[in-house]
């Protein structure tokens, strides 16, 4: 299991994957918005999305878990 964390404080702009979905390393999972920038969060490894911890509009802090991947 890999917990994909946010590197920044910001808001969730888009969720690009669904629970149960298979992803490849480098696929964009979530797009965050902070200080007028779009910040894509990529899958660090291939795997299956077992849990989405955030939804669009959610506020996130640095270190918050966004997605849990089963690799």
């Amino acid at each position, binding site marked *: 299991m890999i917990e994909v964390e946010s590197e*920044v*404080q910001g*808001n969730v702009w888009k969720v690009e994957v669904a629970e149960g979905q298979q992803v490849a390393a480098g696929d964009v999972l979530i797009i965050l918005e*902070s*200080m*007028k920038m779009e910040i894509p969060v990529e899958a660090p490894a291939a795997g299956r999305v077992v849990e989405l911890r955030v939804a669009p509009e959610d506020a996130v802090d640095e270190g918050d878990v966004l997605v849990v991947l089963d690799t």
Partner: protein
Amino acid sequence: MFHRVLIANRGAIARRVIQACNALGVESVALYSEADADAPYLAEATRALPLPGVKAADSYLNMPALLGRLAESGADAVHPGYGFLSESAGFARAVADAGAHFIGPAPHWLERMGDKVAARALMAERGFPVFAGSGALESLREARDFAAEAGYPLMLKPVGGGGGIGMQVLRDDADLAAAFERCARLADAAFADPRLFLETFCMAPRHVEIQVLGDGAGGAVHLYERACSLQLRHPKVVEESPAPGLERDALDALAMQAERITGELGYDNVGTVETLRAGDGRYGFLEMNTRVQVEHGVTEAVTGLDLVATQISLAAGGALPARPQLQGHALEVRVYAEHPRTALPSCGRLTRFRPPVMHGVRVDTGYAEGQTVTPYYDPLLAKVIGFGGSREQAIGRVLVALKGFEVLGVDTNMALLRAVLQDDDFLAGRIDTGYLYSHRW
């Protein structure tokens, strides 16, 4: 002169407008979102009124709320600052409909210059240099036809806006095909206008912009150039005046052309004619910004003119100032709240924030110690402007100022700025818009 100015903005420019109002003896009304309730400049305004929410869309971009505060405040003019609604013709008209003055050019100038293809045509018609470019493109096929005639490399750009969004360098037809749909989508999302156009791409260009003032009745004055070649991920990082290492005669001729056209058009208030200078020395029009620029302090330092006060006075029907002598050299660096390695935004509470106080150095900031840098707005913490008799002296002063600028609680780009200011190529004036990308920091 106006009685009371409402400031539809935040941060460093809100504070700057308050200072200009104070200098003119005009009352100022500051606005603040829920995230900015502890901003230090609110106490410097005559009065401060709240806006709803924290996000830009709910607060500083919220036209009904802004117009509500305008009515409540009894202000007879609105200063839009830069960013947010500063180039919105709709907002400017709504302010006028509410019986107040919009401190900026007439709404039709915001529209005409907002359309990048129309703006280029307007300038070219009057003899300002432009690089070869297409009209607004309806389709990929039309884009291919233009490219076949003009040749690569080309730059693909949105008609509806600047700032680097939806822009792409193209080397061949394959690049064009890959970029066209994607850039149109980006442009549509950012500017509500999917139209694109193509322009000759110049290699290693330098960004040179001319500050102009107009009175709307044919009078115009230029205030020389600013060189803003140091850009990273598109926002400018270092700006200076005069432009280092470029031929003075050509710069003066360009500035005189910008001044002449500003007058002929009957343009009013402040504007900036942005150009690129190609490696072969040719200049080409990029766009005209119809508002005060972030980097206006550089021009203020070398001309001694209060640009924001002049802007307010021109909007109130005041006379154009005479062009001051260009004196000395000024250089501005932008201090951003960002992680030095990843350049990702860095938010947090400013547990320590001590801008330097030094002779020959000006710091514009909307922050104070104890305040929180939030993710809702841009990452600009402060602008540090050094002024001196020579470029070396201005750079030296900014370097000393940065060394003494204490910021704790968020990460900043100050180490990068210090490295740039000590780099041989930068010191020698060997800079183009690719400079920050091509050097390893």
